[in-house]
């Protein structure tokens, strides 16, 4: 892989740091009046998800990370591994460990495309689409005619996620959910 100097750092660049692949979140150039310049860099460790801030002397470089983000459909899980398939027509499948799945586990639905991050051809992260449509499998009975703003109640969705929904929502309805905030958006 190529090396990237601090002046090539920008949001989204994938680099290796302390043996882990990272994505650059933010890069700020700092320089005291007459002195050495530095880059204050925020990086997200793609293995752990942890974001941390590091300071580099301007001109230092980091090795690029062999990281790819691919769209893959979720297929099924066997309790140990979760299986995804490329959507490029190759039908190539990847087995993903629970660790790499993280929070995304509660947003899984078959045949929905997810963004899978591959590092050296291993899946290390799975991100859900921003919006997903899921069925309510359990909630208190809906209150007829109550479409006013205000009250909410918990609802369990087919993926296992629990979200706050308006009081008028019934079991069996399909809802549009924002996976970034975990909030109800509308009926689908």
């Amino acid at each position, binding site marked *: 892989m190529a090396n990237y100097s601090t*002046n090539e750092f920008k949001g989204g660049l994938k680099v290796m740091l302390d043996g882990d692949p990272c994505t650059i979140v933010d890069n*700020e*150039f*700092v*320089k*005291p*009046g*007459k*002195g*050495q*310049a*530095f880059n*204050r860099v925020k990086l997200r460790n793609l293995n752990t998800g942890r974001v*941390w*801030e*590091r*300071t*580099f*002397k*301007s001109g230092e470089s980091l090795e690029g990370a062999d990281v790819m983000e691919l769209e893959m459909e979720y297929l099924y899980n066997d309790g140990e591994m979760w299986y995804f398939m490329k959507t490029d027509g190759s039908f190539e499948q990847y087995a993903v460990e629970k660790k790499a799945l993280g929070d995304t586990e509660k947003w899984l639905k078959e045949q929905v495309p997810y963004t899978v991050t591959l590092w050296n051809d291993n899946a290390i992260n799975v991100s859900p689409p921003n919006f997903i449509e899921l069925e309510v499998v359990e909630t208190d009975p809906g209150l007829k005619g109550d479409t006013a703003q205000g009250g909410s109640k918990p609802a369990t969705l087919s993926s296992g996620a629990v979200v706050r929904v308006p009081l008028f929502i019934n079991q069996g309805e399909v809802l549009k959910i924002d996976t970034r905030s975990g909030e109800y958006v509308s009926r689908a």
Partner: protein
Amino acid sequence: MMSDWRPSASLETLRARARLLGEVRAFFARRGVLEVETPVLGHGGSTDVHLASLQVAANTPGSLEPLWLQTSPEFHMKRLLAAGSGPIFQLARSFRDGEVGRRHNIEFTMLEWYRPGFNLDQLIEETTTLVRQLLPAPPARVLRHRYRDLFGEYLAIDPFLATQEELGQLASRHADADMSVESRDTCLDLLMSLAIEPHLGREELSVVVDYPASQAALARRHRDAQGEWVASRFELYLDGVELANGYDELTDADEQRARFAEDNRERRALGLPEVAVDNRLLAALEHGMPEGAGVALGMDRLVQLALDKQSVGEVMAFATPVA
């Protein structure tokens, strides 16, 4: 169709900027300081180890010559002083390669002025007066801080007496990276940038004085109250942003020549390109430049703070990325 043809500043901002530039000119006109214009292209460059100059190849009569884009108008203005210009100021385009960020743009406007006969105190007074006049809500007080006291206050360390190892450890902690092999000055620069600067210029205009002698650049040196050699230099801070850098100017040609040579030695050691020394500046100093003080002020940053903008790009017609 490409949409990045648009200016990076709003037209309203550009009108406000023009008004502030007008106020700068009026300020110096009232004080009898002459406005000058000097070339941005010169045969000599800045040897400063921490500044990257841009170079161009220009067809001059008879040859293709490498010329330097100035990192500040300092050298040409000093040659005017040596020629007897008296007090002068300039709003000068300056260029520093690689400097891009919220506070930096490769091409920027430097307000620089020189006051023959002034000492550093008089220049600090004039600089803070100008800055306060340009701000819509200037801080009520101007406070001076010694470089050494700031390190004591925010980091509980003495920048002059701390061992290399102590500075390296402290810098590593603040950088979250190993800085133990870096030089004293690099560690001090890092601590100043990350741990001290953000606190400066809050509810006040902060003036920092008595920098380490190793960071004198083109300033004289003197001994402070503790007998330590320090640079006769000040920096001005507002809202955590460095705005200006002033010197009691070095007028000794031999000392200046030695510092240029030392810079280039350090450049070689660091694998940086050497920069052609400005021999015409040295000749001017040998002829005799009047004693006095001079200061460079980042005009774009001042406009940015006066107009409460997030980045310098928002107060420039076209910041480098869309230039």
